């Protein structure tokens, strides 16, 4: 039923397309006056931008990636999944930047998404996380909605046929029911998994965190990422990053502000790139954060960045 509904909406959208197209063009021009949206064959595998404010970084990167309408079609139910794990304010870099999340939600709605939901299965008490991270406020202002994820009833069991250790996790309902989702982690070091970027961000879609921790954490993270519905985009928020005492952090001394953002559909490549970026601040390899290597074994992407067409931009 849902697919049929979606197709119907899509066709209707195409028929009345002219109006939408105009709007989109106007919007794109508005945001980035320089350059046009590249054509399909010119779209890079990954975009890395540095040296701007969160909204600027996002606008530039998504433009290079072909615009949001390449990924989000009118009528789609969209989920944006940030890291909202901790009851910390934005300057501590424990959660994804709220301004970035707001910009993505607004962009998705402008592209015609029927709804945009945002959630995370938090570690700290959920209300504090949603409020103090600034994400709840940003999402509401952008026109999206926050989804509850603090009780088991919001999660449904699914099968992961390719998984090695975690074969039947409970996944958040909004993710199972959506048409497309965008994975938006923040770049941090992690006491257990060593790094927390895109793949580690999958932990927030699973109900039973303790299961992952007690059944080979690294393998379980890679297993979670085999979830059939892949994010249409992974966006790494490296505007502020946490280089020590992660993932919760203790003080502002743990935070660096490189003002960067990376975007790709290849989750393994993006985690690899982000780890190499992080390595400039503090020594870290993907062999240590081995879930990234295990992700490649699951054929989720490549760790060989040389094979990819990466566009590096400095604003």
């Amino acid at each position, binding site marked *: 039923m849902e697919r049929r509904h979606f197709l119907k909406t899509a066709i209707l959208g195409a028929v009345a397309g002219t109006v939408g197209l105009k709007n989109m063009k106007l919007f794109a021009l508005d945001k980035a006056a320089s350059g046009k949206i590249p054509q399909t064959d010119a779209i890079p595998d990954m975009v890395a931008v540095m040296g701007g404010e969160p909204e600027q970084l996002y606008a530039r990167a998504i433009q290079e990636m072909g615009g949001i309408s390449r990924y989000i079609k009118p009528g789609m139910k969209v989920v944006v999944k940030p890291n909202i794990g901790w*009851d910390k304010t934005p300057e501590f870099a424990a959660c994804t930047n709220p301004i970035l999340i707001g910009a993505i939600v607004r962009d998705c709605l402008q592209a015609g998404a029927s709804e945009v939901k945002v959630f995370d299965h938090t570690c700290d008490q959920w209300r504090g996380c949603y409020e103090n991270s600034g994400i709840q406020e940003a999402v509401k202002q952008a026109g999206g909605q926050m989804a509850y994820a603090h009780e088991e009833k919001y999660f449904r069991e699914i099968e992961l046929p390719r998984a090695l250790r975690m074969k039947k996790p409970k996944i958040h309902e909004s993710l199972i029911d959506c048409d497309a989702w965008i994975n938006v982690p923040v770049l941090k070091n992690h*006491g*257990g*998994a060593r790094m927390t970027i895109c793949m580690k961000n999958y932990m927030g879609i699973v109900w039973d965190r303790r299961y992952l*921790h*007690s059944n080979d954490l690294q393998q379980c993270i890679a297993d979670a990422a085999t979830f059939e519905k892949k994010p249409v985009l992974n966006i790494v928020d490296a505007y502020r990053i946490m280089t020590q005492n992660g993932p919760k952090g*203790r003080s502002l*001394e743990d935070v660096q502000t490189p003002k960067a953002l990376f975007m790709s559909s290849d989750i393994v490549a993006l985690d690899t790139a982000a780890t*190499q970026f992080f390595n*400039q601040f503090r020594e870290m390899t993907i062999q240590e954060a081995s879930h990234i290597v295990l992700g490649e074994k699951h054929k989720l992407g490549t760790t060989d960045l040389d094979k990819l067409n990466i566009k590096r931009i400095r604003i």
Partner: protein
Amino acid sequence: MQIYGFFRWARRITALALFSGLLYFFVSISAGAASFWQAILGLQIVPAVLGIASGGLLTVILVFLITLIFGRVYCSWLCPLGIWQDIVYRAGLFVRNKKQRRTRYTKAHDTLRYFILIFVIICVSFGLVVPLLWLDPYGLFGKMATNLGRPLSHLLTGFQYDAWSTAAFVVSAILFIALSVTAFLKGRLYCNTICPAGTLLGLISRYSMFRVKIDAGTCTHCKLCGMTCKSYCIDCNTATIDTSRCVVCLNCLSKCSRGGIRYGFAWKRDRSRTGQPEGSQPDKNRRAFLTAALGAGAGAVLLNRFTEKKRVRISRIMPPGAGTLELLKDTCVACHACVAACPAHIIKPALGEFGWQGFLLPSVSYEHGFCGFDCQKCQEACPTGALRFMPIEEKKRIKMGVVKLSLELCIVEKFGTDCGACDEHCPVKAVEMTPREGTDKVFPKTTPRLCIGCGGCEYICPATPKAIVVIPLSKQRQADAPAIDATIDVKIDSFGF
């Protein structure tokens, strides 16, 4: 008569608003909106007396002054348990016929009420609050609202209730039924016999500036007023009113069509002749008081003998700000406002963990959550100051317990796979994943002097049994401040890939 009607409505509206506000605070599952009603907790007389050192003095003076001027209006305007009894009594009128609705004057149970009051005063002045745990009207209301109302509200909204305690539920249910049945059958019997606050305020209201009194000139002894009194305190035969029991509900006034009973200024010269209910039998009254005082003294001595003199070894953690178990016992009436306010649902009524005197006092359990680093909702809610409100920076260092790691149970040690859940949750890095030579793994390492006992590690530890737990401390203190790591000083201008 018009003016009395106005006052009655004002009383009903204020009382209902206050009652529903307090009820909302105690049972609401959304902590945000409830905090508005928290201010009402500060008006409750027994918590104010217990917390007289921490800001309760103003309330005590205010309530005593109001009582001295207007009589026991506190009991029918501000006391949640009193209002609940009024609601039950009022609802009872609907199921009674005209004849059954009538009430009749009964004598006050002087010996009993003074016994209880004096007993409580002696006990409290010797730092023994346990009788108040079971007598304070506000504390009783809080216990019932929290342990009956909260599970119910969670059941209705479909959220799970983490602070469930069967014992607290059963005790509260018994109290609730007993009090409601008493109110249904006997009106304000509890308030005028058992409640120590009611008796204390009664001693003042006896001499209040404004009082309800019968005007001997216009009264026709029709007894209508006496039949409508829920305190049973209007003696129509002698045309006197026992103002020590009158809660100034003013119901009687609107019954009298002749103005034979009035609420007015009573500090006139002829005070000795009217409005002195016990005036006719002062000896009897004095005898009751003396008997009660003697009995209460003996009772208090006995209770004191049986209380725990030795330091109780606590097997549960006390909420932040409690200080020591002695301090907690000295000031807490177990109203469970902290249980209701805790967003993590970790505060639960204690069973035997704090000894028998500590039954139902707030205790902390990390089964379903842990103490929020930036949270002090329990301290904000506590009306007695038993959970001392402190600057947030001090709360962040308060040491409720201390970490204990059993490395042999740890996932990394047992299975050789990464975990780090404890390190992840620790806000002060009292447990940190550290590399071990000869392995490529990181293992948890604790620094107990930094630990604040928030329970993040214990809650999240995936090992069974838990490899890392928090041991309760019977004396809370400040944990050492962690040394702040230096910032990594790196300037980058390339992506590194």
